[in-house]
């Protein structure tokens, strides 16, 4: 055992670069495997651990995007009358400051209805929760360091009835400290309006509301969504109805923040695709490296065979020799997994979704890692198996036969093809993220200010400001960065196949978009009869056709049905939605068209303007205007984007690593080919063929194979474009990543071929001919 270990260590010492490459490659691969598996496992849990329910469950969430609902709000419990729903309950998760044992403390509270635990079929062990009451989790008890807990609700003190184990400490993506019956909710959200429902009371104080439904086989998500939308549309205030209709999410399982989950799933799928692509490239390259090692070790293995080593003992020795490398892989995998995980956590979406629920499981970790190591060991032994089969002293003397040479070419071709695909997917996702982040930021520094008028009257704006004639100042009726909701219903006129759409509307001065330096897809002038749309809305309106065809077409907004607006321009998305990661469909109308502009009014400028000057220009005495500076908008956008860079960094790292793997893999692939053709090459040189012509000949052959692989790659990407766009919203047929992938691969092929063949000197010719490799 020790002899094999020390032999393995000596091999490591002799071939440090090669082993370091293998260790890092496998370490990264294992780390990626662990991350993808853990994210998948975390995402696949669709109900809490304490639930015994085997029913099909759906969560219905309504997003109010921070808007408050008046007493005329709508009833939201339509889900219980939907076809196919067998039971319905609702709950609210809210962070509240409560008095616990007389001390104020911030806790996460889940308000539940009486049938909540029944619907989820709580484990028999905890059946007492069905009877209702206030329950605390054991973590909260530990936190407060008390055996008994009294919660102050309104004017009364209520003792906690039961302490629940840690499994109750989380619900979907949120952590929970206390479970409180819904009837107590009015202590937190004051009842507004005589006829308001309980749901409206909830909606008055939280942006998200959740309904949980248990469904039978006849349930249809599309039909249910349509039914609920119709019910909402028929009641309540139009603005509330529009907002709710646009923000209904009906998702499988117990699920909070479905929008984030959707984005997270997209990122996970991209990561998984990258993982498989990375895996294929790694295995293909690793096989070349190990084949080269196997050829180099054939003499030693043959010797051991001649000395009487049975194959089984040789195999055991080979396995033992791998132990130092396996240990190194584990170390690298652990380090890189933690590194990748940390980068993912930097991404806002992971923080939001997994902040409390992502669990690092040693069991998953070790299972996946062991599987990766097993694959690695098996692959590393494959070429050795071939060598162990028979005597090998004569192997290589005659070189490879035609079939073997073809197989070598095929391996080279497939290696290039796989790398091109992997590199392109990785670069495409990186490029897309980069573009998104680039267009989200503004080109110049802009300072903003919010002006409010407490007396409720409209502003009297200077004409030159209103008409956008002052190049340094732009106005809008909404802040550039804020939480947004698609509040406006619109429909295209003419023979468009696209139906009604929802978007958020901003009224701006004609110079504002230019002032903040947005990127124009199609430049257009904003006036009373025109509208500018962003790319997110343009794509929705254009459907399958070119967004540029929208220019000149007309839109009708629900709030002004008799006044169609002509689409004059299209801009790339600006991160108006603030922390929301989805691209919000936006339309920009002219503020000139507003009869009166009421507060708040937003002023953006590329210069610092004093509050006094602003108020003076607005003809407002200081006591009638309040100015709140909004700071440097560009800086704020940069800060927002910082949180979105996890996937971008990872994809770029993977691209870089795929490239390095390709280069090293090709180097060894060529070395293997060279070893197998040593006699032919040596003879050609010995018989007077010039090195230059030999190199040119080989280079031409590799480039021909490379071209074949590139054409196949382009065809594959072209045929997969629709699939990738629909599945993960990833454009894999974008010119920049495609060209960059081909360029990198060709660069790698040329440099490795030249590097390997430049070693063919007179000294090596002799070695090639004597066969002493």
């Amino acid at each position, binding site marked *: 055992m020790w*002899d094999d270990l020390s*032999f393995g260590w*000596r*091999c490591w010492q*002799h071939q440090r670069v090669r082993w370091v490459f293998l260790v890092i490659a496998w370490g990264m691969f294992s780390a990626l495997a662990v991350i993808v598996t853990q994210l998948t496992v975390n995402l696949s849990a669709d109900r809490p651990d304490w639930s015994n329910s085997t029913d099909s469950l759906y969560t219905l969430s309504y997003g109010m995007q921070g808007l408050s609902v008046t007493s005329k709000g709508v009833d939201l419990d339509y889900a219980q009358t939907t076809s196919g729903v067998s039971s319905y309950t609702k709950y609210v998760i809210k962070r509240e400051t409560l008095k616990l044992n007389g001390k104020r403390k911030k806790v996460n509270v889940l308000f539940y209805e009486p049938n909540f635990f029944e619907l989820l079929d709580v484990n028999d062990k905890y059946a007492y929760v069905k009877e209702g009451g206030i329950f605390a989790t054991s973590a909260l008890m530990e936190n407060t360091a008390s055996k008994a807990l009294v919660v102050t609700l309104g004017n009364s003190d209520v003792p906690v009835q039961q302490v629940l184990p840690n499994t109750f400490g989380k619900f979907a993506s949120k952590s929970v400290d206390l479970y409180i019956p819904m009837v107590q909710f009015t202590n937190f959200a004051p009842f507004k309006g005589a006829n308001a429902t309980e749901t409206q009371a909830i909606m008055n104080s939280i942006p998200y509301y959740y309904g949980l439904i248990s469904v039978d086989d006849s349930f249809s998500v599309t039909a249910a969504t349509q039914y609920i939308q119709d019910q909402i549309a028929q009641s309540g205030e139009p603005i509330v109805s529009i907002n709710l209709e646009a923000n209904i999410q009906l998702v499988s399982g117990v699920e909070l923040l479905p929008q984030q989950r959707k984005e997270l799933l997209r990122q996970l799928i991209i990561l998984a695709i990258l993982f498989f692509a990375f895996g294929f490239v790694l295995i293909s390259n690793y096989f070349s490296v190990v084949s080269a090692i196997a050829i180099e070790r054939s*003499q*030693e293995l043959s*010797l*051991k*065979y*001649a*000395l*009487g*080593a*049975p*194959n*089984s*003992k040789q195999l055991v020795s080979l396995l033992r020799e791998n132990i130092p490398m396996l240990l190194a892989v584990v170390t690298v995998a652990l380090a890189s997994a933690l590194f990748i995980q940390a980068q993912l956590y930097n991404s806002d979406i992971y923080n939001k979704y997994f902040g409390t629920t992502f669990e690092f499981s040693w069991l998953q970790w070790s299972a996946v890692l062991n599987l990766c190591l097993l694959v690695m060991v098996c692959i590393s032994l494959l070429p050795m198996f071939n060598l162990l089969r*028979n*005597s090998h*002293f004569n192997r290589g003397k005659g070189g490879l036969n035609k079939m073997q040479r073809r197989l070598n070419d095929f391996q080279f071709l497939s290696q290039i093809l796989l790398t091109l695909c992997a590199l392109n997917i990785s670069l495409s996702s990186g490029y897309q993220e980069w573009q998104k982040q680039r267009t989200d930021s503004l080109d110049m520094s802009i300072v903003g200010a919010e002006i409010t008028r407490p007396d409720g009257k409209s502003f009297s704006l200077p004409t030159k400001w209103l008409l956008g004639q002052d190049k340094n100042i732009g106005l809008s009726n909404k802040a550039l960065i804020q939480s947004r909701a698609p509040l406006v219903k619109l429909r295209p006129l003419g023979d468009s196949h696209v139906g009604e759409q929802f978007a958020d509307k901003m009224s701006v001065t004609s110079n504002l978009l230019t002032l903040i330096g947005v990127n124009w897809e199609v430049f257009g002038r904003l006036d009373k009869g025109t509208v500018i749309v962003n790319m997110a809305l343009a794509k929705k309106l254009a459907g399958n056709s070119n967004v540029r065809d929208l220019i000149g077409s007309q839109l009708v907004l629900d709030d002004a049905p008799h006044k169609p607006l002509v689409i004059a321009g299209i801009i790339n998305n600006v991160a108006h939605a603030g922390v929301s990661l989805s691209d919000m469909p936006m339309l920009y109308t002219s503020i000139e068209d507003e009869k009166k502009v009421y507060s708040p009014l937003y002023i953006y400028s590329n210069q610092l303007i004093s509050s006094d000057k602003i108020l003076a220009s607005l003809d407002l005495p200081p006591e009638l205007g309040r100015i709140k500076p909004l700071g440097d908008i560009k800086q704020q956008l940069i800060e927002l984007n910082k949180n979105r860079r996890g996937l971008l960094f990872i994809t770029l790292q993977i691209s870089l690593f795929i490239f390095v793997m390709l280069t090293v893999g090709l180097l060894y692939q060529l070395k293997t080919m060279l070893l197998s053709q040593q006699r032919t090459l040596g003879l050609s040189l010995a018989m007077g063929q010039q090195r230059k012509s030999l190199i040119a000949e080989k280079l031409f052959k590799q480039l021909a194979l490379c071209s074949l692989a590139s054409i196949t790659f382009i065809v594959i990407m072209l045929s997969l474009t629709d699939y990738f766009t629909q599945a993960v919203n990833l454009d894999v047929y974008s010119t920049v990543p495609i060209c960059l992938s081909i360029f990198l691969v060709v660069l790698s092929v040329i440099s490795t071929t030249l590097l390997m063949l430049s070693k063919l000197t007179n000294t090596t010719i002799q070695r090639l001919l004597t066969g*002493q490799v």
Partner: protein
Amino acid sequence: MSEILISLSNLSKSFVSRAGSVDVLKEVDLDIARGECVALVGQSGSGKSTLLSIIGLLDSATSGTYTLCGSAVSALSHYQLSILRNRNIGWIFQNFNLVSELSVLKNIELPMRYNSDIKKADYETIAMKQLTLVGLQDKAHSYPDQLSGGQQQRVAIARALVGEPDMLLCDEPTGNLDSKNSEQITDLLLELNKRGTTVLIVTHDNELAKKCERIIQISDGEINQ
């Protein structure tokens, strides 16, 4: 008459290529007695190395019978063949075939690792005994690349001897050595033969062949004794 150690009867070996079948060995009949010193000579491509590989159990015959120490080789499993190679045969190669990552001592210990009858505690003692026999006891902890060609070949001989094999199979043992080292290696092999080890040498070296008690000429796969 001495006991027959190697007996080949009607042994043939052919390779199939696209050009057709090539007979490398043609119905070879050969007996080698225990304790003999035999030189196998012939031109390149005559089949002598193939014959040596078959005798050394590194290759198998296409047809015919090969009996080693009274056992028909074709009836043995891979595992049994490994045991025979380990305990009955010692190999010496033209290019020494020492493992560069292992020290001299570890190189010599290598065959013992495949012999379960030898205790691990005895490895070093046995290896040092053989190393002393070839006169390199002071080089035990050196590595192959620190030795001259002659020294490397002597290490290879020491390695071949650790299992106390019935026969030594030498494939051009002096092929990579200068005349002085060749002479020393030849003397060593003849000395081992005198001690009772059967030695079969494939060589182009006429001087070496003449020193053997029997010369077998092979040409075009046929033996002319």
